[in-house]
């Protein structure tokens, strides 16, 4: 029996043993074997970074990363001129590329980005597309007026504009009681949150469409705005013909100031892309499209958030509050959005530029 020694329990070697450097017949393989350890260390760090385990890296490894990256990059440059080993070259190329994505992609975390976004990024994006917002608002108003005028001249237009299942009893010639009933205050909140969720997904879909159609030079975005607002104008005429303009506007404004504004913004974002692609100025079309697309995407995040607000407002205060409360809430929301988008964040702009 062998006497027990400490050496009986040994750790498995952490890395497979590197072949003797002197044994390599080719100079380029010797070059590789001398540096292989560093490449593998870099590979190891990168793998963990890519898995999102930044916290598991030790301080030394974080400090080492840029140095190892530069070393790998210079190894690649040398290997390109001295080595014909395709597998080593391929490995180094992908290693340097991966390292480059990590070293020069100093990405901020999602939460840090969100904080920057809400404390000025969103507002600046809105301010940058002010011209498109103005056009979209003008088009919306024009659409509403058109809808009104069309139905006022010939009430048959109402049926052409408003889908039957949406109109329900709210058609031209409906009595004042029927119309007033459709604006009435609900007794309890039952069923309303489900209603809100559905409203939100529906509206978000419409606004994403309005944005994405901007790709076709913005024309479809505008058409979508005109159509939706014409529908609203037609509705407005029906109510005002029974002297219910005030009630209807209050009923609508609770969420409408938020929702219609959001949809107009989505249209403006789409149009911004279309306009920049049609008139790219000094930039190439692709660069202009990319820049405006990213700006518009920020606006769209804002739009989706506004629609969440709108859905909640539409389901609860609109159905539960009286006329004055509705008007006050609607007006307040409008002021809030205007202040947030156009008054806030200007100071930061100067600093960033």
């Amino acid at each position: 029996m062998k006497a027990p020694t400490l050496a009986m329990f040994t750790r498995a070697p952490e890395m497979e043993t590197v072949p003797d450097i002197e044994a390599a017949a080719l100079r380029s393989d010797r070059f590789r074997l001398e540096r292989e350890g560093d490449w593998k260390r870099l590979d190891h760090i990168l793998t963990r970074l890519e898995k999102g385990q930044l916290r598991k890296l030790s301080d030394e490894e974080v400090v080492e990363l840029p140095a190892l990256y530069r070393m790998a990059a210079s190894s690649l440059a040398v290997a390109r001129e001295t080595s014909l080993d395709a597998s080593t070259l391929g490995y180094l190329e992908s290693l340097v590329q991966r390292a480059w994505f990590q070293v020069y992609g100093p990405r901020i975390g999602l939460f840090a980005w969100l904080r920057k976004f809400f404390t000025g990024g969103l507002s600046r994006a809105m301010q940058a597309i002010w011209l498109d917002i103005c056009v979209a608002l003008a088009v919306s108003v024009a659409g509403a007026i058109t809808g009104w005028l069309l139905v006022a001249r010939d009430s048959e237009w109402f049926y052409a504009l408003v889908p039957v299942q949406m109109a329900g009893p709210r058609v031209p010639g409906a009595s004042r009681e029927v119309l007033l009933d459709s604006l009435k205050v609900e007794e309890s909140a039952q069923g309303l949150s489900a209603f809100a969720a559905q409203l939100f997904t529906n509206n978000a879909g419409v606004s994403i469409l309005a944005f994405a159609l901007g790709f076709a030079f913005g024309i479809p975005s505008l058409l979508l705005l005109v159509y939706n607002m014409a529908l609203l104008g037609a509705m407005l005429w029906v109510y005002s013909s029974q002297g219910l303009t005030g009630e209807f506007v209050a009923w609508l404004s609770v969420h409408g100031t938020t929702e219609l504004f959001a949809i107009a913004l989505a249209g403006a974002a789409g149009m911004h892309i279309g306009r920049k692609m049609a008139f790219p100025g000094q930039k190439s079309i692709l660069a202009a499209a990319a820049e405006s697309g990213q700006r518009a995407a920020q606006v769209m995040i804002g739009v989706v958030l506004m629609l969440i607000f709108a859905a909640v407002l539409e389901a609860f205060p609109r159905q539960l509050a009286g006329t004055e409360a509705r008007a006050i809430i609607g007006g307040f929301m409008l002021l809030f959005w205007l202040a947030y988008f156009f008054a806030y964040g200007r100071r930061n702009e100067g600093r960033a530029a």
Partner: protein
Amino acid sequence: MSGRALPSQLRERRAKRTRTMVTPEGVALPLTIASRGTRASALILDLIFLLVGTVLASWLLFSTALGSVADKELNGIPGSIEFLFVVWSIFWFVAWNGYFMFFEMGPRGATPGKRICGIRVASRDGGRLTPEAVVARNLLRDIELFLPLIMLISAPFGSEGAAGWAGTLWFMVFLLFPFFNKDRMRAGDLIAGTWVLDAPKPKLAETLSTAGTVATGTSDVTGVKYKFGADELSIYGEYELQTLERVLRDGRTQAIEAVAETVCRKIGWNPGSGDERAFLEAFYSQLRARLENDMRFGKRKADKFS
């Protein structure tokens, strides 16, 4: 020449997909644009994951809902069902719109499907991939894919109306978009300033010249030392060397025998049998030593035709 492509043609075909990016260190890094087929398979994988995930979650929610209905007598909609419905609609919206965004914002810049296919999203200008770009490219996915698909499923065809055809046309425009630009961008890539690149993760293979005949030039089987003359080594170039490297690394006997025979004929040796691997390893190391030596003096030989 028969249908086989020349090495230079192969290189050209590959070069069409290769872009060069110069790092701040001055090293030119080749980037390869992902092929359209790879991207399509990545997308199909992602859609399968999403569909299975969302349908499973819906099924779980609905079985919960049915359980709560069975307990209580009905009084309008019970609050629990209403709550579940809210959760369900929001979940559906977030899953289908957020899946791509969440994964592409991660450090790997790729959804699970893309990761499996070995591709990633990157910024076209060489900068970092910003969250705005990811949002923009994925919002466009709605009109490129989801909307026309819904339209196709619900719209009538033929005598009933033209909506189906309109949907098909729309779908085709975006589907064919990557075929009409050299960077294979889809509409979302164009808007967001991104492209999709191959992101291979090769393992570092063993060095060939540290073991066996490559190191010594002597066969382990027969003990013969293979030595090639300068004129014999001057026939092949880098392309053939790297093909030979691949054959040696794969180590398939049939391929090795066939290649050994071809090489023998080419350099005017009499092909023997039984010691092909040692012969090829010796040839490889001496050819590589020669070509690398020439390289140091600035002489390069791309392939046997040059």
